[in-house]
C-alpha cells in the first residue's frame, strides 16, 4: 500500500527523469542525431551537466537565502512599532527591485563588480526580494489582533511573541513567498551565463550563438525540470508545515 503510494508520486518520477538527464544525457545521442542530422557534437560537452547544475544551484541558493533572510527581516522590522514608518519605503524599494529587469541589473552590475557569478547573485537577490517581503508582511499582519493581545497579556516578551506566535502563524505565507521567489530565480539565473556565470543557461546561450539547437533544448529541458522539481519540493514542505500546525 505504502509502496504503491510512493510510486504514484509525481515528485519521484520528475526527480528520476531530472537525475537521468543530468547524468546520462549522452544516452540520447542517437535521438538528437536522428532529429538534427549533420549537427556535431549533438550533446553539450564544454562542461558537464552535473557541474553546470551545481553552479546553477549555488547561484540560486546564495541569492535566495540572502533574499529570504533580508526579506523576512525587513518584513518583521516594518511590522514592529519601531519600524512602522518605514513600511512605505520598504514596499517601494522592493517594488522597484521587482520592476527593474534582471538583464538591466546585470548590465549595471558588471562594470561595478566585474564578470562572473556575483552580478547574477545580486540581480537574483534584488529580483527575488519583493515576493518574500510582501508575503511575509501579509503573514505577519494576518496574525489576529486578539492573539497578539493575548500573547502580550500573558507576559510574552516582544521577542517571544515574534518567535513562538507570530512567525509560526505566518510561516505558510512566508514559505509561499520564498517558493515563488526561488522558482523565478531558477529560470532567471540562466541569463547569468551572458556575463560569465556558469549555469544550465550556458548550453542555451552557446547553442544560440553557435546555432546548435540540441544544446538549447538540453539546457532548457534541464532548467525547466529543475524549476518544476523545486516547486514540488516546496509543495511537500508546505503540506508538512500545515499538517504539523493545524488551525
Amino acid at each position: 500500500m505504502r509502496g504503491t503510494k510512493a510510486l504514484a508520486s509525481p515528485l519521484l518520477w520528475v526527480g528520476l527523469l531530472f537525475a537521468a538527464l543530468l547524468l546520462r544525457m549522452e544516452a540520447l545521442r542517437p535521438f538528437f542525431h536522428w532529429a538534427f542530422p549533420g549537427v556535431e557534437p549533438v550533446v553539450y560537452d564544454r562542461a558537464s551537466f552535473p557541474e553546470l547544475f551545481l553552479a546553477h544551484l549555488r547561484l540560486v541558493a546564495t541569492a535566495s537565502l540572502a533574499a529570504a533572510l533580508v526579506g523576512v527581516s525587513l518584513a518583521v522590522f516594518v511590522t514592529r512599532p519601531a519600524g512602522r514608518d518605514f513600511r512605505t519605503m520598504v514596499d517601494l524599494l522592493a517594488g522597484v527591485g521587482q520592476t527593474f529587469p534582471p538583464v538591466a541589473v546585470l548590465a549595471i552590475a558588471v562594470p561595478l563588480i566585474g564578470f562572473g557569478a556575483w552580478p547574477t547573485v545580486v540581480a537574483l537577490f534584488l529580483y527575488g526580494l519583493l515576493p518574500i517581503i510582501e508575503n511575509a508582511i501579509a503573514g505577519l499582519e494576518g496574525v489576529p489582533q486578539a492573539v497578539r493581545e493575548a500573547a502580550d497579556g500573558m507576559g510574552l516578551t516582544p521577542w517571544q511573541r515574534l518567535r513562538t506566535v507570530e512567525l509560526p502563524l505566518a510561516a505558510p505565507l512566508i514559505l509561499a513567498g520564498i517558493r515563488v521567489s526561488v522558482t523565478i530565480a531558477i529560470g532567471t539565473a540562466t541569463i547569468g551565463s551572458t556575463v560569465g556565470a556558469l549555469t544550465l543557461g550556458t548550453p542555451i546561450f552557446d547553442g544560440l550563438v553557435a546555432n546548435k539547437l540540441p544544446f538549447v533544448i538540453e539546457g532548457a529541458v534541464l532548467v525547466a525540470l529543475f524549476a518544476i522539481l523545486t516547486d514540488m519540493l516546496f509543495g511537500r514542505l508546505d503540506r508538512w508545515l500545515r499538517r504539523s500546525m493545524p488551525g
Partner: protein
Amino acid sequence: MIALDHVTKRYDGRAVVDDLSFDIPAGAFCVLLGTSGCGKSTTLRLINRLIEADAGTIRVGGEDVTQLPPEALRRRIGYAIQSTGLFPHWTVADNIATVPRLLKWPAARVGARVDELLELLRLDPAAYRGKYPHQLSGGEQQRAGVARALAADPELLLMDEPFAAVDPITRDALQGELAHIHRSTKKTVVFVTHDIDEALRLATMIAVMNDGRIAQLATPLDLLERPANAFVSDFVGRHGLGLKLLSVRKVADRLRPVGQCAGDSAEGEPLAPETSLRDALSAMTQRHTDRLPVADAEGRALGVITLSDLVR
C-alpha cells in the same frame, strides 16, 4: 489589592480615562460596567500595562506597576478576553501551559496543573488536552481561555467581556462556574461588561463608568436601591427593577431557619442557600408551590423559604 490614584489616559487630547481613583480590596469581584467607549476596557488594560497611563499611579498588591518590567507584572496577573486569543497553532494543553512555562515550572507540575484546570472548567482532560482551538465550540474556547488565565494561580484576574460572544445558555453556565471559582479561590477579579444582569449576578462591587469617570461605585444591591444619579438609574433601568433586586439577594438572607417556626416544612428538591431569590421565584413558579426547602451542599436541611419571604 488594586489602587488607582488620579489615573488619566488621553487619546488625541480626549481623556478616555479621566482622573480615576478607586480601590479594589483583595478577594473582591469588581465589575467595570458601562456602554462602549466609557473607558472600562482601557481601565482594565492600564492595570496590566497593555496601555500606559499618562498620569496617576496604579498599585497592584502595594507595588507601583510602572516599577516592574511589564512582562513580569503580566505573568502575575491572569488575563482573559472576549475573543479568547487562544494560540491557534498550539493545543489546548499548550495554551493553558503558556504562563507556567514562561515562569519555568517543571514539566510535571505544568502537566498536573493543566489537567487540574481542565477539570475545574469542566473539560475532560483526556479528551481536550490535545485538541486545537478550532476544534472547540465557542463556549469551550472560553473555558480554555479562562483556564489559561488561571494557569499560574495568579492572585488577580482581569477579564474583558469574556462571555459576550457566547450564546445565552453557555454564558449562563460560564457565569455560574466563574462565580463558583471566585468563591472557592478568593481571587480578586476585575471584570469588564456592558451587561447589567451579568454584573449583578457576579459582582461584589460594581463601578458604573461614564466618559472615563466612575458614575457610582457600590454593591449590586446599593446600585439598585440607591442609584447615585440620573445616569446610573437610567443605565440600571427602571424596567424590571424588582426582578433585578431579587437577582442580587440570596435565599440565605430570607430563609426561615429550621425549628424557628414549628409548622414550616416544605416538600421537593431543596435550594442551595446561595441561590438568588430570582431563581427561587422561578423554581416556585415552575413547581406550582409557594414554599421550598433549603439545604446546604451536604444535604443538611437549613430551613424553608416561602413566596411571601421573597417580597418581604
